[in-house]
C-alpha cells in the first residue's frame, strides 16, 4: 500500500514537471505570443494551394493521356483551360508576392517555439 502510494506520488510529480516544462525552461520569454499565420500568410497559403492543385491537375491529365484514359480529343479540350488556370494561379501568386514581399522567418521575428532567451 505504502509503496503504491509513493509510486503514485512520484507519477503525479513527474507529470506536473512535464506539464510545467515550457514555463520552467523559459521563465522570462522575450515574447509569449503564438506564432500564428497572419491574414497575408493565409491568403498566400490559399494561392499556393490553388497553384499546386492546378499544376497537379495538368500533370495528372498528361499521365491520363499517356495511359489512354483521356483521349486525344479530351486532352486537347482540357489542356488549354488547365494551362490557363495554372498560369493564372502563378500570376496571382506573383502579384501577391510583389504587393506583399515575402519575409523570412527570422526577419519576421516570430518566436520559433524554442527557447527565446
Amino acid at each position, binding site marked *: *500500500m505504502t509503496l*503504491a*502510494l509513493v*509510486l*503514485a506520488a512520484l*507519477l*503525479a510529480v*513527474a*507529470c506536473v514537471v*512535464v*506539464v*510545467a*516544462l*515550457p*514555463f520552467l525552461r*523559459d521563465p522570462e*520569454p522575450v*515574447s*509569449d*505570443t*503564438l*506564432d*500564428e*499565420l497572419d491574414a497575408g*500568410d*493565409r491568403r*498566400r*497559403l*490559399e494561392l*499556393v*494551394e*490553388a497553384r*499546386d*492543385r492546378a499544376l*497537379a*491537375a495538368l500533370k*495528372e*491529365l498528361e*499521365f*491520363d493521356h*499517356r*495511359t*489512354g*484514359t*483521356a*483521349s486525344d*480529343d*479530351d486532352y486537347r*479540350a*482540357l489542356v488549354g483551360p488547365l494551362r490557363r488556370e495554372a498560369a493564372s494561379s502563378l500570376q496571382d501568386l506573383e502579384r501577391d508576392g510583389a504587393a506583399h514581399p*515575402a*519575409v*523570412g*522567418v527570422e526577419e*519576421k521575428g*516570430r*518566436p*520559433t*517555439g*524554442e527557447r527565446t532567451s
Partner: protein
Amino acid sequence: MAELGRAALVVSLSLSVYALVAGAAAAHLGRRRLAFSAQNALLAAFASTLVASAVLLSALLRNDFSFTYVARTTSEALPTAYTISAFWGGQEGSLLLWLLVLTGFAAAAVRLNRGWARDLIVWVVPVFGAVSTFFAFLLVAVANPFATQAAPGDGLGMTPSLQNPYMLAHPPLLYLGYVGLTVPFAFAIGALISGRTDERWLVATRRWTLVAWTALGIGQLLGAHWAYEEVGWGGYYAWDPVENAALMPWLAATAFLHSVMIQEKRGMLRVWNILLVLLAFSLSLFGTFLTRSGVVNSIHSFTQSSIGPWFLAFIGVVVTVSLALVFWRLPKLRSPTKLESVVSREAAFLYNNLLLLALCLTIFWGVVYPLLSEAVRGEAVVLGREYYDFFLRIFGLPLLLLMGIGPLIAWRRASLRSLLTTFRWPTGAAVVTGLVLLALGAGSSVPGLIAYTFAAFVITTIALEFARGTRARKALGATSWPGAFSSLISRNRRRYGGYVVHAAIVLLAIGIAGSSAFDTVAEAKLTRGQSMEIGDYRLEYRTLDERIAANATEIRAELAVSRGGRDLGTLEAGKNAYTIEEQVSNEVGIRSDPLTGEDLFVIAEQIDPDGAVYFRVFVKPLVNLIWIAGLVFLLGSLITLWPDAREQRRLVERAREIGVPATR
C-alpha cells in the same frame, strides 16, 4: 497495487482536463508556453495511462483475484495468452485500452504535426483533451478497473467463445480503428474553431484516417473469421448490431478517403468532407455505446451497465457542437470550383460516396429500428437478414461496378468516344464472364451472377490500369519493365495502393457471393458407421472421443471424408464443456480446399448420450477468398500508407513559400 492504478487514472483525468482547459485558453489568448504545456499534458496523460495499464496487466498475469476485474474475467486454468486478452475482454479493461490508445494517438499526432501546422494544432489539443476527459472520467467514476474485493480462491473465467486466438488481435484492432477516427475528428473540429479550413487539416490527418480505416477493416475480417470458426452457426457475418457498429464508421471513413481526393484535386466538397469525418467519429462512439450499454442483445456486447446514458449524452454533445461549428463556418467552407460534368472521375467518386453513405444509413436504421420500436410501441421489432441483404445488393452491387468505372474516366469530363475506348476491354471481359457462368449454371442466383460479372469488369480495369501505367512509365524513361512498374507505384502510392485495395474488395465480393449465394447445406442424425452426402462429398461418422484439456472437456466426433470416391482424410467436429465457466461451445470442423477456395464445414449440433450425433454440414464455395482478401487489403493499405518523400518535400517547400518554418 490497485491504489497505483486508481491514482494513475486520476492523474490521467486531471491531465486531460488540463489539456482541454489550458489548451483552449492558450489558443484563445494566443499564449505560446501555455499551448506547449497543454500539449505536454497529452503526452503525460499517455504515460500515466500506460502506468495504469501496466498495473492491470500485472494483476492479470499474477492472477490477483483481489482485483474484481481479474476475478470476473479470468481463472487459474486460463492459458496465459487469453489471460492477457482479458485486458480488453471486459468493460473496464477495454475502456482503459481506449484511453491508452487515445492518449497515445493524441500525443503522437500533435507531436508529428506541430512543426508545420502549429496554428492549427493549438486548437486540436483541447479537442483531444475533451475526448480523453470523457473516457478518463468514465474510468475513474463509472467503470473503474481497479475495484478490489476479498480475493476468492479462483476467478469466474472467460467466456468460452472469447478463448480463441482471434480474440488476441480482433478487439485491439477495432479499438485502434475506433480511436484512430478521433484524430481526423480533432483536426476537423480544430480547423472549424480556428477558421483554418485550408488543406492542412486534411494533409495532417490523411494517414491517421488510413491507419484507423485499415485497422477497422482488418479487425472486422478477423472478427468474421472468429465468428466462422468459433461461434459455429455456419456463417461469418450475421448483421448483428455490434458487427454493424464497426461496419458503419468504416463505410463513412471509406467515403471520406474517396471524397478527400476531390477536395485535394479540385477544391470541392469541403463541407461534405468535414461532415463525413464527424459522421465517422460519431458512429465510432455510437458503436462503442452499443457494445457497452446493454441496449442490444449481442454475442459481442458486454453485459448491461450504467455506462450507456453517459455515452448517449456525449454523442449528443459531439453531434450538436460539431454541426453548430459547421453551420458557423459555412461561409469559409464554400468551394471555389464546381462539378463540370456528371461523366467525370470526381462525379464517379461522388456517386461512390452517395452509395456508401446510403448503405451506412440503411444499416444505421436497421440497428436503431428495434430500439425505436421498443421505445414507441413497447415491442422491439428486429429487421432481419433479408432487410440487410436487400440493401447490400441495391447499394453494394453498383458500388462494386463504380470501382471499375471510376479509374476509366478522366478528371473534369470525358467524351463518349473516350469512354467507348476505355470501357471496351472491361465490358468485354464482364460479358464473357457472365455468359460463361450462365452456361455453367450460375444463373441460380441473379445477384451472385451480377456480382461475378461486375467483379470481372473491375479486375480487368485494375489490370489495365497497371499495364497502361507501367507502359507509360517505360515510355517516360524507365530502364526496365520492373523498374517502370516500381516507379509507377512509388510515384503515386495512393492511386495504385488504392487499386490493390479495390482488388481486395473484389475478392471479398467474390467470396461473399460464392459462399452465400451458391452454398449448399445438409443435415442428418448419424450413429457410428453411418454416412451422409452433400454435393459430391461423402462423410462417414466413425468415432466419438472425449479428452481433458487445460480448461475444458473436449468431445469430438471423427468423420472420414471422401469426394468422388477419393479419400480426403478425416475431420473432427464436436463440443467443448468449460468446467469453470459452466458453458458449452460448438467446435466446428472445417476442411479447406486450397485450389478452389471451397470449405466443407461441419457442425455437431447435438451429441446424444448413446453416441448418435446430429450433424449440419455446409459446402461453401470460394469462402477462403474472403480471408485472402484481408491479406490483399493489408498490402494495398501498406502501399498507400508508406511515407512519401516527394510529398514531404512539397509540404516543406509550401511552408517555406508562405514564410513559416516547416519543421522544427
